[in-house]
Protein backbone atom coordinates (compact mmCIF):
# COMPACT_ATOMS: atom_id res chain seq x y z
CA UNK A 1 0.00 0.00 0.00
CA UNK A 2 2.71 2.49 1.03
CA UNK A 3 4.54 1.65 -2.20
CA UNK A 4 1.63 3.02 -4.20
CA UNK A 5 1.52 6.09 -2.00
CA UNK A 6 5.16 6.80 -2.62
CA UNK A 7 4.69 6.41 -6.34
CA UNK A 8 1.93 9.01 -6.41
CA UNK A 9 3.98 11.32 -4.22
CA UNK A 10 6.89 11.10 -6.65
CA UNK A 11 4.65 11.88 -9.60
CA UNK A 12 3.23 14.89 -7.80
CA UNK A 13 6.75 16.13 -7.16
CA UNK A 14 7.80 15.74 -10.76
CA UNK A 15 4.68 17.45 -12.13
CA UNK A 16 5.22 20.28 -9.67
CA UNK A 17 8.76 20.87 -10.85
CA UNK A 18 7.62 20.75 -14.48
CA UNK A 19 5.03 23.36 -13.67
CA UNK A 20 7.66 25.53 -12.06
CA UNK A 21 9.74 25.35 -15.22
CA UNK A 22 6.87 26.18 -17.54
CA UNK A 23 5.86 29.07 -15.30
CA UNK A 24 9.40 30.44 -15.35
CA UNK A 25 9.58 30.07 -19.12
CA UNK A 26 6.34 31.97 -19.44
CA UNK A 27 7.75 34.84 -17.37
CA UNK A 28 10.94 34.91 -19.40
CA UNK A 29 8.96 34.98 -22.63
CA UNK A 30 6.79 37.79 -21.32
CA UNK A 31 9.88 39.86 -20.60
CA UNK A 32 11.41 39.07 -23.98
CA UNK A 33 8.13 39.84 -25.69
CA UNK A 34 8.14 43.29 -24.15
CA UNK A 35 11.63 43.92 -25.48
CA UNK A 36 10.68 42.62 -28.91
CA UNK A 37 7.67 44.92 -29.00
CA UNK A 38 9.84 47.86 -27.99
CA UNK A 39 12.14 47.12 -30.92
CA UNK A 40 9.19 47.22 -33.30
CA UNK A 41 8.07 50.55 -31.87
CA UNK A 42 11.62 51.93 -32.16
CA UNK A 43 11.75 51.01 -35.82
CA UNK A 44 8.40 52.53 -36.73
CA UNK A 45 9.35 56.24 -37.08
CA UNK A 46 12.26 55.31 -39.36
CA UNK A 47 10.22 53.14 -41.70
CA UNK A 48 7.32 55.60 -41.75
CA UNK A 49 9.60 58.47 -42.72
CA UNK A 50 11.21 56.32 -45.39
CA UNK A 51 7.82 55.49 -46.87
CA UNK A 52 6.85 59.16 -46.71
CA UNK A 53 9.94 60.14 -48.67
CA UNK A 54 9.22 57.44 -51.22
CA UNK A 55 5.67 58.66 -51.81
CA UNK A 56 6.90 62.26 -51.96
CA UNK A 57 9.36 61.36 -54.69
CA UNK A 58 7.02 59.04 -56.56
CA UNK A 59 4.31 61.69 -56.64
CA UNK A 60 6.71 64.16 -58.26
CA UNK A 61 8.24 61.74 -60.76
CA UNK A 62 6.44 62.19 -64.07
CA UNK A 63 7.36 59.16 -66.17
CA UNK A 64 8.30 55.64 -65.18
CA UNK A 65 11.70 55.17 -63.67
CA UNK A 66 13.38 51.98 -64.77
CA UNK A 67 14.54 50.22 -61.64
CA UNK A 68 16.55 47.03 -61.87
CA UNK A 69 15.04 45.85 -58.57
CA UNK A 70 11.54 46.10 -60.04
CA UNK A 71 12.31 44.18 -63.22
CA UNK A 72 9.68 41.52 -63.98
CA UNK A 73 11.24 38.41 -65.47
CA UNK A 74 9.93 35.02 -66.44
CA UNK A 75 9.91 33.11 -63.17
CA UNK A 76 12.43 30.34 -63.40
CA UNK A 77 14.23 30.41 -60.10
CA UNK A 78 12.60 31.30 -56.82
CA UNK A 79 14.01 32.19 -53.40
CA UNK A 80 11.85 31.84 -50.32
CA UNK A 81 12.95 33.67 -47.20
CA UNK A 82 11.36 31.80 -44.31
CA UNK A 83 11.61 33.29 -40.83
CA UNK A 84 11.30 30.74 -38.03
CA UNK A 85 12.72 30.74 -34.51
CA UNK A 86 15.89 29.32 -32.99
CA UNK A 87 14.14 27.46 -30.22
CA UNK A 88 11.15 25.20 -29.89
CA UNK A 89 8.49 24.94 -27.18
CA UNK A 90 6.42 27.65 -28.76
CA UNK A 91 3.38 25.71 -29.88
CA UNK A 92 2.70 25.38 -33.57
CA UNK A 93 4.60 28.56 -34.44
CA UNK A 94 7.47 27.04 -36.42
CA UNK A 95 5.28 24.32 -37.90
CA UNK A 96 2.95 27.00 -39.25
CA UNK A 97 5.72 29.02 -40.91
CA UNK A 98 7.12 25.87 -42.51
CA UNK A 99 3.67 24.72 -43.58
CA UNK A 100 2.92 28.07 -45.20
CA UNK A 101 6.27 28.07 -47.00
CA UNK A 102 5.62 24.65 -48.49
CA UNK A 103 2.06 25.59 -49.33
CA UNK A 104 3.21 28.66 -51.27
CA UNK A 105 5.75 26.54 -53.14
CA UNK A 106 3.11 23.93 -53.99
CA UNK A 107 0.55 26.45 -55.12
CA UNK A 108 2.60 29.07 -56.93
CA UNK A 109 5.81 27.39 -58.01
CA UNK A 110 5.20 23.64 -58.54
CA UNK A 111 6.95 23.68 -61.94
CA UNK A 112 10.03 25.43 -60.64
CA UNK A 113 10.12 23.13 -57.62
CA UNK A 114 10.08 20.02 -59.81
CA UNK A 115 13.11 21.32 -61.66
CA UNK A 116 14.84 21.98 -58.36
CA UNK A 117 14.83 25.73 -58.88
CA UNK A 118 13.30 26.69 -55.56
CA UNK A 119 15.80 27.76 -52.92
CA UNK A 120 15.09 28.52 -49.30
CA UNK A 121 16.84 31.13 -47.21
CA UNK A 122 15.94 30.14 -43.69
CA UNK A 123 16.26 32.60 -40.84
CA UNK A 124 16.11 30.81 -37.48
CA UNK A 125 17.59 27.44 -36.55
CA UNK A 126 14.33 25.48 -36.63
CA UNK A 127 13.59 26.29 -40.25
CA UNK A 128 17.21 25.72 -41.21
CA UNK A 129 17.23 22.25 -39.64
CA UNK A 130 13.90 21.32 -41.14
CA UNK A 131 14.61 22.35 -44.71
CA UNK A 132 18.12 20.91 -44.66
CA UNK A 133 16.82 17.58 -43.40
CA UNK A 134 14.22 17.40 -46.16
CA UNK A 135 16.86 18.07 -48.78
CA UNK A 136 15.70 21.47 -50.04
CA UNK A 137 18.22 23.83 -51.63
CA UNK A 138 19.21 25.98 -48.70
CA UNK A 139 21.21 29.18 -48.40
CA UNK A 140 22.81 28.51 -45.05
CA UNK A 141 24.63 31.76 -44.33
CA UNK A 142 21.96 33.66 -42.48
CA UNK A 143 20.01 31.20 -40.33
CA UNK A 144 21.59 32.27 -37.04
CA UNK A 145 20.52 35.92 -37.10
CA UNK A 146 18.49 35.51 -33.92
CA UNK A 147 21.53 34.64 -31.81
CA UNK A 148 22.53 38.29 -32.13
CA UNK A 149 19.55 40.19 -33.45
CA UNK A 150 20.58 43.55 -34.85
CA UNK A 151 19.80 45.60 -37.92
CA UNK A 152 23.34 44.98 -39.12
CA UNK A 153 22.97 41.19 -39.27
CA UNK A 154 19.49 41.34 -40.82
CA UNK A 155 20.76 43.73 -43.48
CA UNK A 156 23.31 41.09 -44.51
CA UNK A 157 20.51 38.73 -45.50
CA UNK A 158 18.51 41.49 -47.19
CA UNK A 159 21.50 42.68 -49.21
CA UNK A 160 22.29 39.11 -50.24
CA UNK A 161 18.75 38.66 -51.56
CA UNK A 162 18.84 41.96 -53.48
CA UNK A 163 22.23 41.27 -55.04
CA UNK A 164 21.24 37.73 -55.99
CA UNK A 165 18.15 39.15 -57.67
CA UNK A 166 20.24 41.69 -59.57
CA UNK A 167 22.68 38.94 -60.63
CA UNK A 168 19.59 37.08 -61.96
CA UNK A 169 20.21 34.12 -59.66
CA UNK A 170 16.56 34.37 -58.68
CA UNK A 171 13.67 35.82 -60.63
CA UNK A 172 11.28 36.07 -57.73
CA UNK A 173 11.79 36.32 -54.00
CA UNK A 174 9.10 35.81 -51.37
CA UNK A 175 9.16 36.50 -47.68
CA UNK A 176 7.31 34.14 -45.33
CA UNK A 177 6.97 35.16 -41.71
CA UNK A 178 4.51 35.67 -38.95
CA UNK A 179 3.08 39.11 -38.41
CA UNK A 180 2.70 40.13 -34.82
CA UNK A 181 -0.80 41.16 -33.76
CA UNK A 182 -0.78 40.52 -30.02
CA UNK A 183 0.64 37.96 -27.62
CA UNK A 184 -2.01 35.40 -28.51
CA UNK A 185 -2.41 35.96 -32.27
CA UNK A 186 0.09 35.61 -35.05
CA UNK A 187 -0.85 36.14 -38.66
CA UNK A 188 1.24 33.96 -40.94
CA UNK A 189 1.89 35.77 -44.19
CA UNK A 190 3.77 35.31 -47.43
CA UNK A 191 4.55 38.53 -49.24
CA UNK A 192 6.31 39.28 -52.52
CA UNK A 193 9.72 40.77 -51.82
CA UNK A 194 11.30 41.11 -55.23
CA UNK A 195 10.67 42.30 -57.87
CA UNK A 196 9.30 45.36 -56.10
CA UNK A 197 5.55 45.67 -56.59
CA UNK A 198 4.62 48.84 -58.50
CA UNK A 199 4.47 51.88 -56.27
CA UNK A 200 1.12 53.57 -56.72
CA UNK A 201 1.02 57.30 -57.19
CA UNK A 202 -1.29 58.54 -54.52
CA UNK A 203 -3.64 61.23 -55.79
CA UNK A 204 -3.90 62.96 -52.44
CA UNK A 205 -0.16 63.31 -51.85
CA UNK A 206 0.86 66.80 -50.89
CA UNK A 207 2.83 68.47 -53.60
CA UNK A 208 5.69 70.27 -51.96
CA UNK A 209 8.34 71.71 -54.22
CA UNK A 210 11.31 69.76 -52.93
CA UNK A 211 14.88 70.27 -53.97
CA UNK A 212 16.21 66.85 -54.94
CA UNK A 213 19.88 66.04 -54.42
CA UNK A 214 21.35 64.46 -56.58
CA UNK A 215 18.30 63.79 -58.79
CA UNK A 216 14.91 62.20 -58.35
CA UNK A 217 15.82 59.06 -60.28
CA UNK A 218 19.04 58.54 -58.42
CA UNK A 219 17.33 59.16 -55.10
CA UNK A 220 14.74 56.55 -55.96
CA UNK A 221 17.48 54.07 -56.80
CA UNK A 222 19.17 54.79 -53.46
CA UNK A 223 15.96 54.72 -51.48
CA UNK A 224 14.65 51.38 -52.74
CA UNK A 225 17.33 49.11 -51.22
CA UNK A 226 16.93 50.89 -47.87
CA UNK A 227 13.21 50.26 -47.91
CA UNK A 228 13.83 46.63 -48.80
CA UNK A 229 16.28 46.32 -45.89
CA UNK A 230 13.70 47.69 -43.50
CA UNK A 231 11.10 45.30 -44.92
CA UNK A 232 13.20 42.29 -43.95
CA UNK A 233 14.11 43.88 -40.61
CA UNK A 234 10.45 44.45 -39.86
CA UNK A 235 9.63 40.85 -40.79
CA UNK A 236 12.36 39.55 -38.49
CA UNK A 237 11.26 41.77 -35.61
CA UNK A 238 7.65 40.75 -36.10
CA UNK A 239 8.67 37.10 -36.18
CA UNK A 240 10.69 37.56 -33.01
CA UNK A 241 7.77 39.12 -31.17
CA UNK A 242 5.44 36.42 -32.50
CA UNK A 243 7.78 33.70 -31.29
CA UNK A 244 7.82 35.02 -27.75
CA UNK A 245 4.07 35.60 -27.85
CA UNK A 246 3.50 32.04 -29.03
CA UNK A 247 5.83 30.67 -26.38
CA UNK A 248 4.13 32.68 -23.69
CA UNK A 249 0.68 31.35 -24.55
CA UNK A 250 1.87 27.77 -24.95
CA UNK A 251 3.74 27.88 -21.65
CA UNK A 252 0.66 29.35 -19.99
CA UNK A 253 -1.38 26.43 -21.35
CA UNK A 254 1.29 23.99 -20.14
CA UNK A 255 1.22 25.43 -16.61
CA UNK A 256 -2.55 25.21 -16.63
CA UNK A 257 -2.44 21.57 -17.73
CA UNK A 258 0.13 20.76 -15.07
CA UNK A 259 -2.25 22.30 -12.53
CA UNK A 260 -5.04 20.04 -13.69
CA UNK A 261 -2.87 16.92 -13.51
CA UNK A 262 -1.75 17.96 -10.03
CA UNK A 263 -5.34 18.27 -8.90
CA UNK A 264 -6.20 14.77 -10.14
CA UNK A 265 -3.02 13.33 -8.62
CA UNK A 266 -3.75 14.93 -5.25
CA UNK A 267 -7.21 13.39 -5.21
CA UNK A 268 -5.83 9.93 -5.96
CA UNK A 269 -3.07 10.45 -3.40
CA UNK A 270 -5.55 11.33 -0.68
CA UNK A 271 -7.75 8.43 -1.66
CA UNK A 272 -4.83 5.99 -1.42
CA UNK A 273 -3.79 7.46 1.91
CA UNK A 274 -7.30 7.14 3.28
CA UNK A 275 -7.52 3.55 2.03
CA UNK A 276 -4.23 2.73 3.78
CA UNK A 277 -5.49 4.20 7.05
CA UNK A 278 -8.78 2.35 6.78
CA UNK A 279 -7.09 -1.02 6.19
CA UNK A 280 -4.70 -0.38 9.04
CA UNK A 281 -7.62 0.43 11.37
CA UNK A 282 -9.56 -2.64 10.26
CA UNK A 283 -6.51 -4.76 10.94
CA UNK A 284 -6.10 -3.37 14.46
CA UNK A 285 -9.77 -3.60 15.26
CA UNK A 286 -10.11 -7.13 13.95
CA UNK A 287 -6.88 -8.11 15.76
CA UNK A 288 -8.26 -6.74 19.06
CA UNK A 289 -11.57 -8.50 18.42
CA UNK A 290 -9.76 -11.81 17.87
CA UNK A 291 -7.86 -11.39 21.17
CA UNK A 292 -11.05 -10.73 23.08
CA UNK A 293 -12.52 -13.71 21.17
Amino acid sequence: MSGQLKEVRNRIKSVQSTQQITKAMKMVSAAKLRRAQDAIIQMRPYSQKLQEMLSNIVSSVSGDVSMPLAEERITERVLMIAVTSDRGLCGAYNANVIKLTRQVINEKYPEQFKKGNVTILPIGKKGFEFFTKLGYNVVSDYWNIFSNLSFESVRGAAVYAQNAFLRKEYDRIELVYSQFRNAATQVFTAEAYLPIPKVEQKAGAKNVDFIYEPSMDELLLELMPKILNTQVYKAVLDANASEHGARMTSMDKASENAGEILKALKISYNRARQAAITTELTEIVSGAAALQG
Partner: protein
Amino acid sequence: MQLEILTPEHKVFSGNVYGIQLPGTNGSFEVLDNHAAMIAALGKGKMKVLVDKHNTDVYEISAGFVEVLNNKTSVLIEDATALA
Protein backbone atom coordinates in the same frame (compact mmCIF):
# COMPACT_ATOMS: atom_id res chain seq x y z
CA MET B 1 15.15 74.28 -36.25
CA GLN B 2 13.94 70.88 -35.23
CA LEU B 3 16.15 67.90 -35.87
CA GLU B 4 15.45 64.19 -35.75
CA ILE B 5 18.06 61.55 -36.45
CA LEU B 6 16.52 58.11 -36.91
CA THR B 7 17.96 54.63 -37.38
CA PRO B 8 15.97 51.39 -37.60
CA GLU B 9 17.11 50.47 -34.10
CA HIS B 10 16.56 53.68 -32.22
CA LYS B 11 16.22 57.44 -32.25
CA VAL B 12 19.74 58.87 -32.13
CA PHE B 13 18.87 62.49 -31.67
CA SER B 14 15.77 64.62 -31.28
CA GLY B 15 15.55 68.28 -30.40
CA ASN B 16 16.17 71.86 -31.38
CA VAL B 17 19.50 72.65 -32.97
CA TYR B 18 21.28 75.51 -34.62
CA GLY B 19 22.16 73.55 -37.75
CA ILE B 20 23.63 70.37 -39.15
CA GLN B 21 26.45 69.53 -41.52
CA LEU B 22 25.90 66.49 -43.71
CA PRO B 23 28.01 64.47 -46.16
CA GLY B 24 25.94 64.60 -49.35
CA THR B 25 26.68 62.26 -52.23
CA ASN B 26 27.90 65.28 -54.21
CA GLY B 27 29.84 66.85 -51.36
CA SER B 28 29.27 68.12 -47.87
CA PHE B 29 26.56 70.69 -47.14
CA GLU B 30 24.95 72.45 -44.22
CA VAL B 31 21.31 72.91 -43.25
CA LEU B 32 20.46 75.94 -41.12
CA ASP B 33 17.24 77.57 -39.96
CA ASN B 34 14.53 78.02 -42.61
CA HIS B 35 16.19 75.94 -45.26
CA ALA B 36 14.09 75.27 -48.36
CA ALA B 37 12.26 71.95 -48.65
CA MET B 38 14.72 69.32 -49.76
CA ILE B 39 15.30 65.58 -50.01
CA ALA B 40 18.92 64.54 -50.39
CA ALA B 41 20.93 61.35 -50.40
CA LEU B 42 23.88 61.10 -48.02
CA GLY B 43 27.17 59.36 -48.58
CA LYS B 44 29.90 58.05 -46.34
CA GLY B 45 31.36 60.63 -44.01
CA LYS B 46 31.00 62.68 -40.86
CA MET B 47 27.74 64.23 -39.77
CA LYS B 48 28.10 67.22 -37.49
CA VAL B 49 25.15 68.35 -35.39
CA LEU B 50 25.53 71.98 -34.36
CA VAL B 51 23.58 71.90 -31.11
CA ASP B 52 24.36 75.58 -30.50
CA LYS B 53 27.17 77.88 -31.52
CA HIS B 54 29.72 76.15 -29.30
CA ASN B 55 28.62 72.56 -28.89
CA THR B 56 28.72 69.97 -31.63
CA ASP B 57 28.01 66.25 -31.82
CA VAL B 58 29.85 64.31 -34.50
CA TYR B 59 28.70 61.00 -35.95
CA GLU B 60 30.25 58.72 -38.52
CA ILE B 61 27.66 57.54 -41.06
CA SER B 62 27.86 55.38 -44.16
CA ALA B 63 24.74 56.26 -46.14
CA GLY B 64 21.27 57.65 -45.70
CA PHE B 65 18.81 60.39 -46.52
CA VAL B 66 17.77 63.75 -45.23
CA GLU B 67 14.44 65.48 -45.60
CA VAL B 68 13.94 69.14 -44.78
CA LEU B 69 10.37 70.38 -44.58
CA ASN B 70 8.89 73.36 -42.72
CA ASN B 71 11.98 73.90 -40.60
CA LYS B 72 11.93 70.25 -39.54
CA THR B 73 14.91 68.13 -40.56
CA SER B 74 14.77 64.35 -40.51
CA VAL B 75 17.93 62.35 -41.06
CA LEU B 76 17.48 58.67 -41.88
CA ILE B 77 20.57 56.51 -41.59
CA GLU B 78 21.15 52.81 -41.13
CA ASP B 79 23.93 53.19 -38.62
CA ALA B 80 25.51 56.01 -36.71
CA THR B 81 28.64 55.80 -34.59
CA ALA B 82 29.11 58.69 -32.24
CA LEU B 83 32.58 60.18 -32.32
CA ALA B 84 33.81 61.95 -29.23
